[in-house]
């Protein structure tokens, strides 16, 4: 029994059950909060929002503790190359599942653009639908006026969205520079490039907030302005949530670089974060092309 450990299997862990309870609290709180703050159900009270944020806080605590444990194990040298591969594959398949999540919303976008909007305007064999339901409805994209008569203006591609494209593509390049610096053990260059990436992520998010404000206040483009607004906000919104997540992950990596973590050979967390960041970037390129541009 004196051989070296082939695969480290932790005996027990408290974090998963903390996470499960936290997700339950979060989910229950979110549904309750939605009931209490929107008018479809209009439940009484305001406790939903507190339950929801408690859930978020415990999830954050769980992630902190869980990743902390894994980092300690890694620093203590308990992870074999085989385990490193498990982590890598796990992250890759997680990104695949994220791609499919966005695919659902892109599917909705293409369905609206290619099928539902033209059909409502009478395309194919749908002339009677058009004539009897909404005879004045015209097929345009962006959808300036819904069949029900809600009007909106379109978000132009070549203003803020284009600047955001440049920012995000640049940040993908800078995170790669940081990775190269890490592989050559140039810690100062690594810190600088990583810090720039974090700043670019923040800049993107700031511009996104400004863009949303402009949409709501000047263009009349809201969640309620028909399928154009629905797809616009759900796609850019979930992308923005992922950028937020990615920026936090990058900031944690920056903090870990300052703490002296990572070696040119052993830096899975950094690589996983950069994969995630590239994924978020590629999703944005599709968004820019199909939501804003064409």
């Amino acid at each position: 029994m004196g051989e070296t450990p082939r695969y480290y299997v932790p005996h027990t862990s408290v974090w998963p059950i903390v996470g499960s309870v936290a997700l339950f609290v979060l989910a229950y709180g979110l549904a309750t909060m939605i009931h209490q703050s929107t008018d479809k159900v209009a439940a009484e009270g305001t406790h939903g929002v507190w339950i929801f944020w408690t859930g978020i806080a415990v999830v954050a605590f769980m992630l902190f503790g869980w990743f902390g444990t894994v980092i300690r194990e890694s620093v203590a040298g308990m992870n074999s190359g085989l385990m490193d591969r498990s982590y890598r594959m796990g992250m890759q398949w997680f990104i695949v599942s994220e791609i499919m999540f966005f695919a659902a919303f892109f599917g909705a976008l293409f369905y609206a653009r290619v099928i539902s909007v033209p059909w409502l305007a009478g395309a194919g064999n749908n002339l009677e639908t058009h004539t009897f339901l909404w005879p004045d409805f015209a097929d345009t994209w962006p959808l300036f006026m819904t069949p029900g008569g809600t009007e909106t203006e379109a978000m132009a591609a070549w203003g803020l969205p284009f600047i955001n494209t440049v920012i995000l593509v640049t940040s993908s390049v800078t995170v790669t520079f940081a990775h190269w610096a890490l592989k050559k053990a140039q810690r100062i260059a690594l810190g600088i490039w990583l810090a720039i990436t974090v700043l670019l992520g923040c800049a993107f998010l700031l511009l996104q907030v400004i863009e949303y404000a402009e949409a709501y206040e000047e263009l009349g483009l809201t969640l309620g302005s028909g399928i154009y607004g629905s797809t616009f906000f759900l796609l850019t919104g979930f992308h923005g949530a992922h950028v937020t997540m990615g920026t936090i992950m990058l900031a944690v990596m920056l903090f870990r670089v300052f703490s002296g973590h990572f070696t040119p050979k052993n830096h899975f967390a950094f690589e996983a974060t950069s994969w995630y960041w590239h994924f978020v970037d590629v999703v944005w390129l599709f968004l820019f092309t199909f939501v804003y541009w064409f």
Partner: protein
Amino acid sequence: MIAHADTIPKQRHPLIAFILRWLLTTNHKEIGTLYLCLAFLLFFIGGAMAMVVRLELFQPGLQFTQPDFYNQMVTLHGLIMVFGAVMPAFVGLANWLVPLMIGAPDMALPRLNNFSFWILPFAFILLLSSMFMEGGAPNFGWTFYAPLSTTYGPPSTDYFILGVHLMGVSSVLGAINVMVTILNMRAPGMTLFRMPLFVWTWLITAFLLIMAMPVLAGAVTMMLTDRHFGTSFFEAAGGGDPVLFQHVFWFFGHPEVYIMILPGFGIASQIIPTFARKKLFGYHSMVYATVAIALLSFIVWGHHMFTSGMPLAAELFFMYATMLIAVPTGVKVFNWVATLWRGSITFETPMLFALGFVIMFTIGGFSGLMLALVPADFQYHDTFFVVAHFHYVLYPGAIFGTMAAVYYWLPKWSGRMYDERLGKIHFWTATIAVNLTFFPMHFSGLAGMPRRVVDYSIAFADFNIVSSIGAGLLGLTQILFLYIIVKALTSGEKVTDAQVWEGAEGLEWTLPSPAPLHSFHTPPEIEPDEAHAATDKA
């Protein structure tokens, strides 16, 4: 050997130590047991709801339930059986068997494994609590079509949506774990084409889960924003389309159907060769057929919506693509039959369930072929014929598959043998009950009895009486099954031999019975056997 970080002090009160052990465990065998127990519990809850449905349908008219409560029972029965019984049971089997079959010390990501399991009980608390909420539980069917679930859904729909999100997180994390385990943790020499078919089918199931579950998450998210935040995904007045919901749902839903059957295929492919005492016929073609079925599952979703409004070209495409699935499925059935051909067959309980699986699943497959025909489907759509079809693939498919697996591997898991005579009684009563319950539904469906409706015309009364009697018997067989399991675990004959079944092959049969908590600390040697050496060259 493995390094262990034992964090539980030994001097705790036994009860607390017991609870902590199951809450905090990262062991694949213990988590597999948890999955199987949860699945069995939810199987009883979902089954009790089916009993309510069949009791109400015993006679035309309203007897025991109000229409709204009946709809809630139909909805929850479907949701619980799909997400609570079949899927967790298969994940439990994967947890128990995949590391044993590939010679791995545990799952690749043991903590994540605990997380994927413990999310599930909470998800079902959220779903089941909706029954006690104002306005009642979800009542729109397990497919929750818009606008029934958006504009007209009860307030509890939002708790249902968040519950589905939790189930999705659990399934995706569990699938990632199985995927990584199979791809990364195989013992040296265990090449992909030496893997047992159960492992192969689970590899492909994991892929389907990773691809399909996030799409379901997207669908319920759009539902949530349509319900509360003014979006118009499923609202024609805003340029959206209720039919869009069906497209998104069934893009998830059809791969989901195969998620619920592929591991069953794997189980049959393990058991039939053992009791026929022959190698599985056509190992490679089995693998390729499974891959083909999985890929096709992504391009056939439209066959669930032939009557929802689609261009003729799309209907034809989905019809032909669906019929194409009969080819790889036929390859599989042919291979099972060819494995039996000239074998020295014995009929122990696992074999009976596996053979019942092959025969009755094939009946369900044929009625599926009938439903795939667009003009015929116009007649069958939303009738009891559809109910008969998918219960034939799910009950003798997924459930018989799981039961065959439990009988087959229980001696390895527990070190104790079940009562063979009771096992055979279980099989024959279950088989009679399944056919009594579901076969008449073909006829009532063809005659035009709609599904999901609490009342029906007197013309269908005879078929429904037979179905209800069958369903009651089927309910009783579950209690028999529970009794057999408990009896085996408490007073079953002890198994001392590692090789429980004479003809069984695979690494799990090299371990002692019961399998020790930690197995394959050092990876086993994989000896290429003659049959596989031949196929390795091919």
